[in-house]
């Protein structure tokens, strides 16, 4: 697997292009998305499809994992030939841990949202990173709870206003800085509308033998776009009134950008607000964790989002090596391999008869 990323995508050939394992891009698609037209999450889904196709991933060797939210629904919208586990809210990391231990040959792609990860799920997120479970962990970050209609998540920017009119009073959690502080071996940030940047990052993450975190800014069409917002979507503004119906979700084109490494680019979100993306230059050295932390803090002070691979340490020992497990997936072990023989039971019974095996101590709370 870990070499897959290096295989170049095949050039155009007659008929639908096929990748190294003879599949077409269509083979990596899923069922029709039920997200709002223009949702950043759908753009990410497309990048995943392309990246997986270009890498020539074997669908049956990949498992899609997610929590709960609009973002967490997206695994249904790509790679329908792969197994998927849509868990409960915020607990996908523990599922990923179990799946990996049971079958270390499976490649894990985790999809989460900012609410799913930074609010309810921050604890499991941290322990996933600490264990360095090999999973490409995507956060489709829109700063709100989309599926429950736009409340703030723990990554909402200070001072933004929700559709309800409420203003967020708290500092956002920077999931990348957090991951780096926790020693995560691969940490990147990107933007849903920048497939050129996102695709290679996805490939690198999928090839990393440890937890790889990608925090992806992914605008929410619906809940950053409302009357009363200080900076409402202009051409809607004139007709503010009809939008009075809060159940109305106007159609939008996804926001796309295309800019070079080292450059900055201001992006206008659906509600007219602006974020400045700053792409790390080719000169940036992602092997220095301290440097990465400094870069993030500085950008934060400048009010910018740095995008790109912030930190990468491929050397980190993979979790399965730590566990000293057999090469073969535990899930495929036969009864003979896992049931000790009669002599083992006899040996144990003998020790229990004589007391040679000291009993476990009592105590605790």
């Amino acid at each position, binding site marked *: 697997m870990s070499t897959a990323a290096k295989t170049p995508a095949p050039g155009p050939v007659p008929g639908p292009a096929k990748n190294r394992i003879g599949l077409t891009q269509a083979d990596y698609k899923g069922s029709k998305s039920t997200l709002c037209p223009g949702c950043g999450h759908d753009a990410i889904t497309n990048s995943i499809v392309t990246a997986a196709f270009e890498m020539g991933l074997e669908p049956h060797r990949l498992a899609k994992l997610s929590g709960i939210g609009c973002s967490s629904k997206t695994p249904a919208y790509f790679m329908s030939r792969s197994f998927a586990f849509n868990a*409960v809210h915020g*607990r996908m*990391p*523990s599922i990923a841990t179990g799946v990996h*231990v049971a079958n270390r040959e499976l490649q894990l792609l985790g999809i989460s949202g900012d609410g799913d990860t930074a609010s309810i799920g921050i604890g499991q997120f941290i322990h996933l990173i600490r264990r360095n479970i090999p999973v490409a962990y995507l956060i489709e970050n829109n700063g709100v709870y989309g599926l429950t209609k736009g409340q703030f998540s723990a990554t909402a920017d200070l001072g933004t206003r929700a559709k309800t009119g409420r203003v967020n009073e708290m500092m956002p959690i920077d999931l990348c800085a957090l991951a780096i502080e926790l020693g995560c071996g691969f940490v990147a940030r990107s933007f849903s509308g920048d497939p050129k940047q996102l695709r290679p990052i996805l490939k690198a993450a999928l090839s990393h033998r440890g937890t790889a975190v990608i925090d992806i800014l992914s605008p929410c069409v619906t809940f950053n776009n409302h009357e009363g917002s200080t900076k409402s979507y202009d051409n809607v503004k004139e007709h503010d009134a009809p939008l009075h119906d809060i159940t109305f979700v106007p159609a939008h084109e996804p926001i796309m950008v295309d800019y070079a490494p080292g450059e900055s680019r201001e992006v206008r979100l659906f509600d007219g607000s602006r974020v400045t993306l700053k792409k790390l230059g080719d000169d940036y050295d992602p092997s220095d964790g301290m440097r990465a932390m400094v870069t993030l803090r500085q950008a934060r002070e400048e009010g910018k989002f740095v995008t790109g691979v912030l930190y990468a340490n491929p050397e980190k020992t993979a979790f399965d090596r730590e566990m000293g497990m057999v090469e073969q997936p535990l899930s495929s072990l036969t009864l003979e391999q896992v049931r000790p023989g009669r002599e083992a*039971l006899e040996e144990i019974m003998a020790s229990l008869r004589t007391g040679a095996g000291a009993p476990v101590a009592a105590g*605790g709370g």
Partner: protein
Amino acid sequence: MNAPTPIRVNEFNLHVATVNGSGSQTANTTLLRSIFQMGIPVGGKNLFPSNIAGLPTWFTIRVSEKGYLARQKANDFLVALNPETAAADIAAMGPGSVIVVNEGVPLPPVPTDRTVHVVPLTKLVEPIVPDARLRKLVVNMVYVGVVCHLLGIDPEEVDRALAAQLGRKQKALAMNREAIRAGLEFGRANLAPAPFRVERRNLVGTKILIEGNTAGALGAMFGGVTFAAWYPITPSSSLAEALQNYLDRYRRDPKSGAATFAILQAEDEIAAIGMVLGASWAGARAMTATSGPGLSLMTEFIGYAYYAEIPAVIWDIQRIGPSTGLPTRTSQGDLLSVAFMSHGDTKHVMLFPSTVDDCFRYGMTAFDLADRLQTPVFVMSDLDLGMNIWMSEPFTYPEKPWDRGKVLSDEEIARLGKFERYRDSDGDGIPYRTVPGQKHPLAAYFTRGSGHDEQARYTESSETYPRVMDRLSKKYDTARRLAPAPVVDRTPRATVGLLSYGSTAWAMEEARDLLRSEGIETSHLLLKAFPFHPDVRAYIESYERVYVVEQNRDGQMASLLRMDMPDLAPRFRSILHYDGLPIDAVTILDGVRSGEREEVTVR
């Protein structure tokens, strides 16, 4: 010396009162095992506080050639080492009892029909152990010597028991031997033997001594566990730790020496059950062990596992709640919360081991059932069964292979030409599953806790939802027949039926003998699983009054029975014990007695 009491042989309780952290375990185990080695049935119960050192702890050895191993309220022989509790400990001793106190422990006035031996334990150990700090530990061996003399335990056996424990640690062995001898000699020189003694018998044979948690761990190992995730919590930790120790030793690949298992200490119980579900979904035999608070934290995921149909084995070593409760006291109080755990219409499968042998066998059965039924299976043990020391016939090697349930291979899918994850193809409510990693293009499916149809596709359809839920109910009925049947012991002339489960069985056996000696013939049904096997109903139907004996306040099993058999609901009477100590036979005796008396007066 007071009037000699008739000598009782091989039927008494030895009670050692000390403080935890003082290291009396080796001493007590030595006593327990030396009697055991003399061919006499014994059991050991450890009553310990929820802290690490300095609080009162009691260890009770029941010696019973009749083979009764349940707790008894009264003790016959007390070793009082804890000054703080000595007064109460001694006051609790009855006529004819023997009391050994360490010199210096304050003595309350003691009626003359109790024998008190004040022994200078500390003085006796001084010459043996120079290091003052260590004396605190070795002093325990002195009372072993004293007790050995008073009860007539064969010193040879004491020495064997000690050697077995200390093994190669020669320095230790020597020091401890000396201490024992000191006690023994002091006894011989100064103390008259007790009115109850041990005499060699041949009642033990190849039997073993083991805690339920260790037995459960062994069962899991021979059941082929490949993954366990857990978070430390008393009284379940020792199950996970025993599992780790045994697997480390017996579950390595012969060639590479690599582990054919993985055990993970999770960050909490939500993560532990999540890991178990992930691993199980991916094809591992996965389990966890926990107790009350941890169980409550697993609630959301348990509902998921029920609805998405993922096998999982959860050992609940019950301690007494609610909430933190008494972490080191026993209970059978989690039944109702487990039976309907998590929101919505959920029903779960529970197994009730009552012996260490059950723990061993259910360690395997639980996996087979979980895989077969594709649902969480709870093994409802408790602190008494799980952490105390029980005598048992040696465990027998499993003759049956494991049952991984309905898993469709790629070949079978190819043959069938289709795969529907949630289709009831066999009419038993149990669908087929595949395992992630299978290559066949039709093998993959989407697992979710939201509404799904037979093809595991998302749906909110008001036709599909109830259809899937009804199948789950059907599957649950199938479980009645697959889960272990109850053990029914009918007595021809029995007027009342008794019903118990789990560790209560021990006191029950003894209580029935007591009742019989009072002329009350009883039948007994020992429940092994929920949902109830058809035999349970048949049993209830044949008795006008069925006493349900359990260790909780609310009569939780009685409630489950009433819900399951509304037409028979009026027949159930509850006998309840819930003070955190294991139930004893007399509590049952009294319960039945007074219950039957009422009956008479009512008529």
